[in-house]
């Protein structure tokens, strides 16, 4: 799998010689990405604590039961993705695909649930800082969930290339890491938005 000229297939060449690079780079990227969420979280907290009238007129707070169910679905999907990785480690490609698909389904359900929640809300993006921060946080997170599902789709397709995942694959590891990241972000988000409603 060596390439005579480095510029031809750099990933492959480096993948063969230095298998850890892609994952290292991705972890570094995720650390950086977490700061943008941190920025949004702190903006939310600052605006909420300094506001005279936090909730817009006609809004009493956020309904938390459906989002809680959504959260359970999302957290479970972190569990199923671990099972998928375990299956791959044992060489069970069809087992991997099954749990992977299940994870994707759970992720898609989460997005569906988010859309349902959004459509039922009585405030919009421009309803003061409350509306702005709510949609910004949940929207940005939702974007990451959608990206995760997209990455998973890519990995699923690649799993059908013969021999692609024979040696364990960084792409799957990275996607899984991303998915856990999205999950942890959601837990923090849930506490900030739905639990901290004073």
């Amino acid at each position, binding site marked *: 799998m060596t390439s005579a000229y480095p510029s031809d297939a750099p990933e492959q060449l480096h993948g063969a010689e230095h298998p850890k690079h892609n994952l290292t780079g991705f972890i570094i990227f995720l650390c950086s990405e977490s700061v943008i969420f941190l920025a949004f979280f702190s*903006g939310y907290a600052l605006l909420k604590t300094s506001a005279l009238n936090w909730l817009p007129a006609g809004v009493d707070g956020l309904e938390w039961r459906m989002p809680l169910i959504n959260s359970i679905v999302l957290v479970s999907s972190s569990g199923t993705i671990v099972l998928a990785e375990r299956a791959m480690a044992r060489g069970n490609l069809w087992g991997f695909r099954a749990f992977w698909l299940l994870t994707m389904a759970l992720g898609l359900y989460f997005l569906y649930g988010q859309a349902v929640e959004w459509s039922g809300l009585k405030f919009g993006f*421009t309803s003061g800082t409350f509306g*702005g921060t709510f949609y910004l946080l949940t929207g940005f997170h939702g974007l990451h969930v959608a990206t995760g599902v997209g990455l998973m789709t890519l990995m699923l397709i690649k799993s059908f290339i013969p021999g692609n995942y024979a040696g364990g694959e960084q792409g799957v590891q990275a996607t899984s890491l991303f998915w856990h990241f999205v999950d942890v972000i959601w837990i923090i988000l849930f506490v900030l938005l739905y639990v901290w409603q004073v």
Partner: protein
Amino acid sequence: MTSATFPTSEPKPSWSRYFSFNTDAKVIGIQYIVLAFFYFLIGGLLAMIIRGELITPASDLVDRTVYNGIYTMHGTVMLFLFIFPVLNGLNNLLIPTMIGAPDMAFPRLNAVAFWLVPIFGTLLIASFFVPGGPANSGWWSYPPVSIQNPLGHLVSGQGLWLTAVALSGVSSIMGAVNFVTTIIRMRAPGMGWFRMPVFCWTALAAQSLQLIGLPALTGGAVMLLFDLVAGTSFYRPEGGGDPVLYQHFFWFYSHPAVYVIILPVFGIFSELFPVYARKPLFGYVYVALASFIIVGLGLIVWVHHMFPSGVAQWMRNLFMVNTMLISVPTGVKVFAWLGTLWRGKLRLSTPMLFCLGGLFNFVFAGITGVMLATVPVDIHVSNTYFVVGHFHYVIYGAAVMGIFAAIYHWFPKFIGRMPYEGLGKLHFLLTFVGANLNFLPMHPLGLMGMPRRVSSYDPEFAFWNVIASLGAFLLGVSIIPFLLNMISAWVRGPKAPHNPWNAIGLEWLLPSPPPEDNFGEHVPVVIARPYGYGSGLPLVEHQAEREQALTLADKMEASR
């Protein structure tokens, strides 16, 4: 080790590769640097218009809206389209070669990161041509003034500005991930952390700051963009928003950003002083580690840009103390350079002159920096020309001069030709005099109370403004010998040997210019600390054989 290690009659690669999606870091490095200087000229032209306006008290050269757009774009172009790209260019050239890697960790990502620059650069320049003109609220884009959008268009100069800055952030983060991974993972055998050149240490420090700080700016800018185009109220007081919140987001990144700019320059000084004084870098380990102390402190000082904004007293005191502390690790570096020069055998070639001039300006800027850190003084001089003078001393006086030093020093290595020394010295003289004439008068102006960003001023400020403008025009002229030098040396300069400066470093154990995969299969094993001048010890195993092969290759190249 055979003498046929390095091919001596490779077909010359085509110049058109510089215009293509090429994944070789050395090509990308040149692309970054040349593109950056193109934007430098644009930013410089804008500066000439600014100083042309300010040579007289009245607003009589251009309309005030035009002036505001021009000073905004001057800052924006110089920061996002010149200084960050040129530093990324140096990173691309120097990091893989200095650590003995064949390329960056992610070559295709590297190329994508570069090609984003002309894309967002075009967006930014295009903003001059939309109906409302470009962004015109300063490179800070503070709301609410930045979101007033008088024409109410969806596509406004400010909107394009925000989009361009967001893309710049994406490009920078891509670069940062690449540089950090490369430095952490791809060093040559034997190159432990404390055998790595200081330039790589400072690059690692600077890129870490990018990774940590940029997302905060992106977050703040995204919210500003929504306020501008979607009617949200993150920063609009009428909707319950807070303009000062934006300032926190903005400065949380933009303060570390100045360390992103100056740390690589510290690295350049640390690399060049040993070469041109023929002496080891004094206290190499301390210089390396001080870079990370600067990173840590640099992340907790941002409120010093907001002292008059409306922040509590305890905050002002805290951030004042943190800011003043940064002078300690910085001082360690400055003294280390002095210690390197002391009892050295100095040679005042062009790169050395730029380093010395840069150090001179930097110390001055550091002192005005401590003054700005002092809250009671800052309350008087913040948002005045004192600040403009301070940061131009750092950026032009120190950073740009350091970058010029780096270009003259490594030009032979990566272009394969020697620049002209006479033109280089002329460039230095004009730059040093021009920069001091341009930026020193800004300090009394600020102390007297002249605000910054003004398109007109009271007559008592005229004297120093005239001097500053004359200095600026001289700076404009100073670019001419530089451009002449670069172009003619590139096209027909004398061929460069593999180590024209007799420097110690892995990059100098490559031909000039290096082959595409640098050391390829024959990565040297590092056996000594860097900067071993005077010790007579080799840097790598089999160094003598390598030098022999390289010298032979130089001779054959010269006779071609």
